[in-house]
């Protein structure tokens, strides 16, 4: 794939408004076969986020620039990209947090096949999700078909429910990004999804064997990159992946715990 830098033909931004400052961008343009960085300049005013700049480029300089977005509030997980090399949401990246005098590089997520410009095909994630055993609650506790549980039991799981499925964690994970183990490893998003089900106080399904044998939890080497890029600040590694790794150890690697489990008759 070509990586040369081209300069857009139509790059004449309007004169700066009061307090506006010109910011130079390098945005990846291309499809799955070819592409290059193209330079644009945008007059940035106070309060703008990077997605605003991309929209302004679309409106004024490159109407064919492809970019996926929806809520512009950090809740839909659509506008994932790599900004100055860091996987981030474009709508949550305030322009005043970027170095003011440097060119801003915007690329699509590198771990997924490119459709066009900043839009990638993340459908692999949805295929993976379908393979995880679904929630299987125990019999209802009460005659009216309801269950009783306490907030502190569900707190751990609720943290994982904040996930907006932006797939930045999948993008940054080196097991997928650099080693292309996507056929043997489900990635941090789905290790966390499995943890949310597995740690649920009502759930009776056992997914620990799948985690070890099919989902490749052992490929995670705890670099915590997923945690660092999570826009919802979920403790993916410490609160989901490592607890699952420990449950795998309980079931497969620790003879003493296995002995206890046999005597206690746990699932």
């Amino acid at each position, binding site marked *: *794939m070509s990586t040369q830098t081209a300069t857009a033909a139509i790059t004449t931004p309007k004169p700066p408004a009061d307090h506006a400052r010109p910011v130079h961008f390098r945005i990846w343009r291309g499809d*799955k076969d070819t592409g290059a960085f193209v330079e644009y300049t945008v007059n940035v005013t106070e309060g703008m986020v990077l997605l605003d700049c991309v929209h302004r480029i679309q409106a004024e300089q490159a109407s064919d620039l492809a970019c996926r977005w929806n809520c512009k509030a950090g809740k839909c997980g659509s506008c994932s990209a*790599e900004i*100055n*090399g*860091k996987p981030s949401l474009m709508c949550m990246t305030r322009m005043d947090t970027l*170095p003011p005098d*440097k060119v801003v*590089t915007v690329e699509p997520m*590198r*771990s*997924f*096949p*490119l459709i066009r410009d900043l839009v990638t095909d993340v459908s*692999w994630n949805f*295929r*993976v999700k379908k*393979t995880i055993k679904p929630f299987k609650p125990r019999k209802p506790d009460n005659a009216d078909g309801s269950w009783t*549980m*306490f907030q*502190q*039991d569900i707190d*751990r799981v609720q943290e994982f429910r904040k996930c907006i499925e932006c797939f930045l964690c999948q993008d*940054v994970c*080196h*097991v997928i*990004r*650099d*080693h*292309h*183990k*996507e*056929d043997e490893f489900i990635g941090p998003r789905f290790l966390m999804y499995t943890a949310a089900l*597995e*740690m*649920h*106080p009502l*759930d009776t399904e056992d997914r620990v064997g799948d985690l070890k044998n*099919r989902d*490749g*939890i*052992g*490929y*995670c*080497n*705890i*670099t*915590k*990159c997923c945690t660092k890029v999570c826009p919802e600040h979920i403790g993916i*590694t*410490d609160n989901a992946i*490592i*607890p699952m*790794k*420990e*449950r795998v*150890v*309980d079931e497969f*690697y*620790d003879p003493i715990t296995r002995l206890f489990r046999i005597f206690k008759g746990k699932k």
Partner: protein
Amino acid sequence: MTRSPIPLPQVRGFLQTQRTDYWWVTPILVLLGLGSFVIYSTWAAFQGCNYFIGGIDQPGVQRLLSPFYSPVLWDPTGINSGHAWFGQLPGWWPSFIPFSPALLILPFPAGFRFTCYYYRGAYYKAFWGDPVSCAVGEPGFRGGNYRGEQKFPLIMQNIHRYFLYAAVLFIGLLAWDGIASLQHYNADGTRSFGLSVGSLILIINPIFLSLYTFGCHCMRHFVGGNHDCLSCSMDGGNAYRKVTWLNQRHMLFAWISLFGVAFTDIYVRLCANGTWTDLRIL
């Protein structure tokens, strides 16, 4: 189940990245910090001397023992630390194997740190670039042959909890050394209470080690992480919450305790070889 591979046209080489921040600072600091500790502790472990002060022939000096050498199972021939559980090195020890009391001890705390979840993530990055940093290109030779902790040899990291058991035991022993450091010998061979800077260091050291050890991810698993129902536990999840608090600061306590234990050894060593004098407070 079909998870068709995803074609990835953009593969970067070693250290290639679009990141513009100082991403290389942390791996370098870890490399220097951990590397220095490993080199120093290895050197100190092989010395086999200058690991204590305040023996019976040093009246008035507080009894300090280096944490690298505690517990002393046998003293090397010709040394009487007063801390050895079984006296002098027995005659059956093969002469071709160099002996130092620390060599029998250090594998346990070293194993605990080597298999620690925090250190794993840190040294995988700093020492063998796997990855060097987030979203930075890796050495190309690994590529699709990556095994992670899924297969041998790193699958052995799952032994971590057994090192945790040893680490808890060692905290008890080091706490006892801290208490013992409040004593000194008198000229008539009796022992008296006293307090020195070294005593304070030996007391603070196991406290730092406790903050690190009891915040371990395995500990968190044992006190509630292995149950789906926290409220069902005897203490209502109280221990889990406390360990979680420590666990959220695991990296901080990992480094504080690492430098703490190294400094404690350095202090005792420099006092033992006469470079420093342990200042008596009481």
